[in-house]
């Protein structure tokens, strides 16, 4: 029941904040903030359960809630939480609170509607992390699109409509392909067992010939790779991230990208273990390319947010690499990277937003020498930039280090290339710092330093980046059961064939025609 509340609170408070904003716009902010804080406390209370009760260690689901929804089609309202979803949900709600706080001054129009969209996109994301019914998963997957579209399209910057379209079409097309994949698995499972169900726990035991599995997997992989984003299909990301308002960028970078990684871990690997193993070399190569390509393009940007957006491409390349390295270190590193990237990139977007509020520009060439005007802001940004380039002692270092150890055991070449990516990261991060805070203050900026509200935001981010950098064990312990389960997946890649089985049996419907 607590899982349902996690989602319902967000949905209802979204409606509530739209209603109360009619009297006073400030009400909407407080409603959203308090709802998110309550939700976060609820999620943390689940956290307490795992550590207190060791019995749940065996059963990898900490809590489950289900009720029939459309029984005729085998659809259930089935939510479940394990270590992986728990950490993701907590990250979601934490960044959600920050998103409300950063919009406090930035969003001045249509405040009620803004918070409605903000809370609904968060509800969709929480739903994606909790859904254990594939139809429900698809439902939430699509649900988060529309509010996100509005966040970009209504409150974004100059080129917002174009960016919003691009975001929507990319995710929608790939989502529909995923639907085809889901339905394919559903019918094959129904055909072989006679039990037509969308239940995750049943579908992961679906028997498929390797050819069918290979193609159905692509439906899932494309949807997740677009969100992740993996390199050839990342082009929506720089536009969407750049044009979105700060809160939108925080949610996009911090959370939406994570749903892609989560989907790969939760669905692609368990449902198609062999096909995923066969895909691994290509996916890892793409990941490594993403790291280098993202870093290269980040270095070339003159727009603050666009630069940070490309660093996302680079960092998420590590995630792709880690997922398909398929060993314990890499998995641990992947989860850490998801969290660390969520924190550090959101932090950089928040700094971009704070600067934009004061200077009304995102152009790096126009900034410069801001350190003398706002030294505290400079110091804080320094911490975030260091986190982003992977300085030891901060969360990203742990993540990237673990992933590199894992990848090294699979492929020395890719590990080597990725390390070069780290060098690039140093270059573009320091360039960012140099361009904004150091050098001559040519435009004579005189800006206010951080205010109380902003200190709370950046303080919390710095705290978590340092704590997770020095003591990541609690997170790793929480997700360990999930990782153990991933490691138990059968891998029979030697006999893998991409060729259709003989005789050709693409007609999974049994050929009534």
């Amino acid at each position: 029941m607590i899982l349902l509340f996690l989602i319902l609170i967000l949905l209802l408070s979204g409606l509530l904040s739209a209603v109360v904003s009619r009297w006073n716009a400030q009400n909407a902010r407080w409603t959203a903030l308090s709802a998110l804080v309550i939700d976060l406390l609820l999620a943390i209370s689940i956290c307490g359960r795992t550590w207190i009760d060791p019995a749940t260690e065996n059963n990898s689901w900490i809590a489950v809630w289900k009720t029939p929804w459309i029984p005729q089609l085998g659809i259930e309202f089935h939510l479940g939480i394990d270590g992986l979803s728990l950490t993701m949900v907590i990250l979601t709600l934490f960044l959600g609170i920050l998103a409300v706080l950063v919009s406090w001054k930035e969003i001045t129009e249509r405040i009620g509607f803004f918070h409605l969209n903000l809370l609904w996109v968060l509800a969709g994301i929480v739903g994606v992390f909790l859904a254990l019914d594939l139809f429900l998963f698809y439902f939430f997957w699509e649900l988060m699109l529309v509010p996100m579209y509005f966040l970009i399209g209504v409150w974004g910057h100059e080129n917002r409509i174009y960016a919003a379209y691009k975001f929507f079409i990319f995710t929608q097309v790939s989502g529909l392909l995923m639907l085809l994949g889901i339905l394919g698995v559903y019918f094959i499972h129904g055909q072989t067992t006679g039990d037509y169900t969308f239940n995750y726990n049943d579908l992961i035991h679906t028997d498929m010939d390797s050819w069918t599995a290979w193609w159905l997997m692509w439906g899932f992989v494309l949807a997740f790779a677009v969100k992740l984003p993996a390199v050839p299909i990342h082009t929506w990301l720089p536009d969407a991230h750049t044009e979105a308002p700060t809160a939108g960028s925080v949610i996009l970078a911090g959370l939406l990208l994570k749903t892609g990684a989560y989907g790969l871990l939760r669905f692609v690997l368990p449902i198609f273990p062999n096909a995923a193993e066969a895909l691994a070399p290509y996916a890892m190569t793409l990941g490594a390319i993403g790291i280098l390509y993202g870093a290269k393009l980040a270095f070339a940007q003159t727009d603050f947010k666009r630069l940070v957006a490309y660093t996302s491409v680079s960092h998420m390349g590590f995630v792709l690499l880690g997922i398909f390295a398929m060993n314990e270190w890499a998995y641990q590193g992947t989860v850490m990277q998801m969290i660390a990237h969520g924190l550090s990139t959101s932090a950089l977007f928040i700094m971009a937003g704070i600067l934009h509020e004061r200077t009304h520009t995102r152009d790096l060439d126009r900034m410069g020498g801001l350190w003398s005007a706002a030294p505290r802001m400079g110091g804080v940004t320094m911490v975030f930039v260091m986190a982003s380039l992977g300085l030891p002692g901060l969360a990203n270092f742990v993540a990237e280090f673990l992933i590199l150890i894992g990848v090294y055991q699979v492929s020395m070449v890719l590990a080597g290339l990725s390390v070069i990516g780290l060098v690039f990261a140093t270059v573009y991060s320091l360039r960012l710092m140099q361009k904004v805070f150091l050098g001559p203050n040519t435009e004579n900026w005189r800006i206010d330093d951080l205010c109380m509200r902003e200190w709370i935001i950046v303080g919390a981010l710095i705290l978590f980046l340092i704590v997770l950098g020095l003591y990541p064990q609690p997170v790793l312990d929480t997700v360990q059961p999930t990782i153990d389960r991933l490691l138990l997946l059968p891998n029979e890649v030697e006999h893998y064939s991409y060729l259709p089985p003989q005789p050709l049996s693409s007609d999974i419907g049994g050929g009534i025609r």
Partner: protein
Amino acid sequence: MNTSALIALVPYMILAFGSVLVMLVIPFYRCHRLTVILSLSVLFAAFLSLFLVTGYLPQQATELIRVDGFAFYFMGLILAATASVCLLTYNYMDGRDVKYPEELYLLMLLASLGSSVLAASSHFASLLLGLEILTISLYGLISYLRKEIRCLEAGIKYLILASVSSAFFLFGMALIYADLGTMNLGEITTILNGGKTEASVILLTGLAMMLVGVGFKLALVPFHLWTPDVYQGAAAPITAFIATVSKGGMFAVVLRYFRPADVPNAPILYFSLALIAIVSMLAGNWLALMQNNVKRILAFSSIAHLGYLLVTIIAVNSIAASAGIFYITAYMITTLIAFGIISILSTKETEAEELDDYLGLYWRRPWIAGIFTFALLSLAGIPLTGGFIGKFYIVAAGVRSAEWLIVLVLALSSSIGLFYYLRIIVTMFSNAENTRPAIQANIPLPWASCFALALLTLLLLWMGTVPARLIEWIYSLV
């Protein structure tokens, strides 16, 4: 025909006698409001009687009409849609200088009777009868505002094309009868199904000609050319009527009898239907992109949606028919909402049909814009709306029969579709000032239409969130 068959026919009789009653009352006492109330009560009585006589189903009432749950479900849809259109029309005509708006409702009742007969027909004769009652009433409805040139143009266009298509339909029936020697739809299906030999050329020609008639009525490519013009020319509530009532009845017959899987010896029928489906989806969505007129956008989008619906006719399996029924229900509700919004916003001087009329609508009329957004999202197949479940259902039906190509085209073309739905939505949420003064005027919202729209929106939300009951019901029909 025994008594129970007669009882099963009661809803049809109520509708028929009700039409006569309305016709008789109009010359004696011309009053717009009274006519609307009378028509609504006839529709309501017929709707109520559907539930009262369900105990007597199914019945073969004469050879012409098969009354069963399936027919009643569609009749219920048609009646409810007609009632909504009546409410919309009342407000729409009230705001205009129409001297005699009363006969509109008479025509609507007759058209809904025709459509209901179509949904229940089991014989060529009743099929043609239903079709003609429907079509001839539509001629009158489309060009009812005879002082407006666009209505007349639309009416003439529809008249010519519809009569040609009826002729094709009739000729097709004759050819099929010549070959098979029966006009009973059920028997024809049985003969075709069990046919061991090759289908003859005469039979195939007959089927193809009937396909032309069906394609015209459902506005499928390449028989769609009338759609945008008629949708644009007719008054907004009448457009809603054409898009829902006339298509609903025809779709019911097609879903029941015209399935290519029933003709195993003529794969060409399967291929041509698949081709029509694919082309309709692509062309409908593609052409809608080019439009700046909301009515035309919706017209082309309806072509695409009927293309989606064809998937449920091509794919034959345990869930295809129920998917089709679910989708047409969602489609009818959504279309009524969309055209309802247009007719509410239209004023005496101008139809609210240009995209610019909707600039910043959300900030002026949040509720209206919100409902319109909801309807458009349903057409686009976004969660929480009936359209989402419906599209999922159709894709499931397609995947079930491994119609991968068609389903892929559906997925891709509906992504094209997103563009223009989002375009309307973006316009409504944009910050720009409206330049068309007629629409800007803050006229009070008509309560009757708003009531209908609110009800329809709740229904759509219900279909999108807790559809289990409805799906269970639909399962019991097929």
